[in-house]
C-alpha cells in the first residue's frame, strides 16, 4: 500500500508507493544518450583557447596554464547565469524585492577525455574533481559578496546538460538558496528541541534499519532517503558530524571519491545509464550553527517527468519505495 511520508527536516509530504507495487528499473522509460556533438569539443584537450581563461586546474607536468597537459580544469561559464563584476545593489519595486545579478558561475571540466563520465572514473580521477570543488569553494568564500557556494552536476539531456563532455558547475550566490535555508532551519529546530543533529540521528536510524542502505566505507554512507522526491534518489553523508567539506583532507577525499563514483556506477548499471543530477548541500559561508547541520550529496536520476500535481503542491509522488530502490542498487555491481 502506498504511504504518505513527511520529511523530518523541512516537513514536505511525499506519496511513496508500497513495496509490492513499486516500479522496478525496467518500468521507467529508457533514455538513449545519442551523441549530437562532435567527438572533439571546446572542453577537450588542446582546445583550451576556446574556453575563457582557467581559474584553476590540475596539471601535473610543467605545462603553462591554458595549454595541454591538464587532468581537470575550472573555467568561468561563457553564458553565466550571474555576473561577477559589480557591487550587490538591493532595491524594491512596490511590494517586490530585487537585486542585480551578482555571483560567479564556473565550469569544472572533469576530464580531458570526451567519452568518459563520472561513473567511469578511477578513484584518483574522481579525487581530482572533488579537490577542485574544495579549492574553488574556499576561494569563492573569501569574496564578501557571496553567501553560498552551490556545486552541482547535470549529466544527460533530460537532466539539463547542454554539453556532453563531462563537467560540473559551481555557482556562488549572494544569498542562501531556499532549499538549503529550509534544511538549515529544520535542522536547527530539531537541534533546539533535542540537542542533536537530525542528520546524525537519521544516519543512525538507517543503519539500524539497513533496508535503505546502498553502500558504505570507513568515512561515508549512502542510502535511499525514507522521504525521496524522485525514484532511486540517493544521498551520501560523511558518517562523522565533524567532517567539513571544504577542509576535508586526503583520506576523506579519497573515501568520498570512492563512494560517489561507486553509487553513480551502480545507477548506470541498474538504470541503464540514466540522466542524473547531483548537488552538494553544504553550510553557507561563515555559518554560525555548524552543530546542527551535516553536509551531504544528493543524487537524483531523471526517470520521470514532474507533473502538474507536483509543481502545484510540492507534494511529490514516488512510484518506487526507497527500500526497493536500495535493494536494486545494492545488487548492481560489475
Amino acid at each position, binding site marked *: 500500500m502506498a504511504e504518505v511520508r*513527511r520529511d*523530518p527536516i523541512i516537513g514536505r509530504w511525499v*506519496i511513496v508507493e508500497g513495496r509490492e507495487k513499486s516500479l522496478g528499473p525496467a518500468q521507467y522509460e529508457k533514455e538513449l544518450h545519442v551523441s549530437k556533438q562532435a567527438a572533439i569539443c571546446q572542453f577537450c584537450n588542446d582546445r583550451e583557447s576556446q574556453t575563457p581563461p582557467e581559474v584553476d586546474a590540475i596539471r601535473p607536468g610543467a605545462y603553462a596554464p591554458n595549454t595541454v597537459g591538464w587532468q581537470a580544469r575550472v573555467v568561468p561559464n561563457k553564458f553565466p547565469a550571474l555576473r561577477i563584476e559589480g557591487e550587490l545593489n538591493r532595491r524594491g519595486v512596490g511590494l*517586490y524585492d530585487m537585486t542585480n545579478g551578482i555571483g560567479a558561475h564556473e565550469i569544472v571540466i572533469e576530464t580531458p577525455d570526451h567519452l568518459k563520465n563520472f561513473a567511469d572514473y578511477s578513484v584518483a580521477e574522481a579525487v581530482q574533481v572533488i579537490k577542485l570543488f574544495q579549492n574553488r569553494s574556499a576561494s569563492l568564500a573569501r569574496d564578501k559578496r557571496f553567501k553560498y557556494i552551490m556545486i552541482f552536476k547535470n549529466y544527460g539531456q533530460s537532466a539539463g546538460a547542454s554539453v556532453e563532455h563531462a563537467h560540473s558547475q559551481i555557482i556562488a550566490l549572494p544569498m542562501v538558496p531556499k532549499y538549503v535555508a529550509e534544511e538549515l532551519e529544520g535542522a536547527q529546530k530539531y537541534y533546539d528541541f533535542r540537542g542533536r543533529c537530525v542528520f546524525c540521528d537519521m544516519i543512525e*536510524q538507517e543503519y539500524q534499519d539497513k533496508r535503505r542502505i546502498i553502500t558504505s566505507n570507513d568515512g561515508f554512507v549512502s542510502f535511499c532517503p525514507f522521504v525521496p522526491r524522485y525514484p532511486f534518489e540517493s544521498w551520501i553523508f560523511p558518517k562523522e558530524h565533524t567532517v567539513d567539506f571544504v577542509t576535508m583532507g586526503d583520506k576523506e577525499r579519497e573515501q568520498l571519491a570512492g563512494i560517489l563514483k561507486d553509487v553513480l556506477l551502480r545507477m548506470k548499471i541498474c538504470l541503464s545509464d540514466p540522466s542524473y543530477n547531483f548537488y552538494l548541500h553544504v553550510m553557507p559561508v561563515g555559518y554560525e550553527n555548524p552543530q546542527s547541520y551535516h553536509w551531504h550529496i544528493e543524487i537524483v536520476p531523471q526517470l520521470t517527468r514532474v507533473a*502538474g500535481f507536483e509543481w502545484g503542491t510540492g507534494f511529490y509522488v514516488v512510484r518506487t519505495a526507497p527500500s526497493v530502490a536500495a535493494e536494486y542498487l545494492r545488487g548492481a555491481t560489475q
Partner: protein
Amino acid sequence: MPELRKDPVIGRWVIIATERARRPGVFLDSQKNTFEEAACAFCDNKDKEIFSIRAYSGAPWRVRVVESGTPLLSSHGKFSRHGHGLYDVVNDYGAHEVVIETPEHIANMADLTQEQIRMVFETYAVRYNELNKNTNFQYVIAYKNYGWAAGSRRIGHSRSQIIATSVNPFSAKEKLAGAKKYYNYRERCLYCDMIQQELDAKVRIIAETEHFVAMTPFAPRFVFEIWILPKKHNCDFAKGVVGQEHDLAGLMKIVLTKIKIGLDDPAYNYVIHSAPFRHGETGAKWKTLAEDYHWHIEVLPRLTRVAGFERGSGFYISSIPPESVAEFLREVKING
C-alpha cells in the same frame, strides 16, 4: 545584467538571466503533442461516474467526473497516522478523480468552447464542495497535465484531475504562511495589493476581463509562467468562482489559445490554488485566513528542463524577463 527577483509570497529568489537566452539548447525541441489515437478511453467512458453535467436527466453527459483508473490515493480504507523512528507517516487515504472535460475527442482545452470550459470550472467547484464534507480531507487541488512533457500520458482527450489529501501540501503551507505574514504586517491581502500594483504598472498584464486578470509573475519559476487572479477577494475557489465561471472560462480560453499559437502547442500544466478546508475550525491557525489568502490559478507551459541547480537550490533561472513574455503574449493574435 542579470537580475535576482524575490517572489513576494513565499520568498523564493529567481534569476532573470537574459544573456543566457543565447545559450544553445535552452528550449526543448519544438514539442509536437503527438497522441496515441487508438480507441480513446474517454470518448465512450464507462467508468463509474461520480458526477456529471447533463442538459436533463438521461441526456448525454457534457462533463463527467470518474474515479482515476490509477489512483494515487483512495478513500476506501480508513485514515491512519503512525510514526517510524523520526519519520511521520500517514496511509494513502485521499481521493483521486478524473474530470473528462468534453465528450468530443479534443486534446487541448484551448480548443473547447467558452461554454464547455465554463462547465469544467463549475464541475471543479461542485467537487470541492462535495469533498469538503469529508472531515479527513484537508486540501483539494484541481490540476491539468497537457502533453507529454507536462507529465501526461499520450492521450488526446482533454481532461484534468482532482486530488484530495489528508495533509496540507508543502507549497500550500508556504503560500499560506507568506500571505499571513504580509497580512499581519499590513492588514491587507498580499494578492490584492499585487493585483493593484500590476494593473497600475501594466507591463506584466497579458489580458483582463471583468472579474479576472492574467499576468506574468514578477519572479517566475518558468519561462512563460502565467497567473490568473480573481479581482474580487476570496480565499476559496469554490465560493469565489460562483457567478464568475463564464468570465473565467473566457480568460482561460484566451490564455491557452495564446500559448498554443505563440509557442507552437506546448505542453503545459495548470493548477488551482485555494485555501485548505477548515471544517468549522476558527482557531489561531485559520483566524485571518479568509482575509489573508486569495485563490488563484497558475498556468505553467513546459518549455525548459529543470536541472541540477534548480533541483538542489530551489533557485530558478529564467532566460526571458516576464515583462517581455507578457508583451509577446499580448501581441499574439487569436481569432474571435
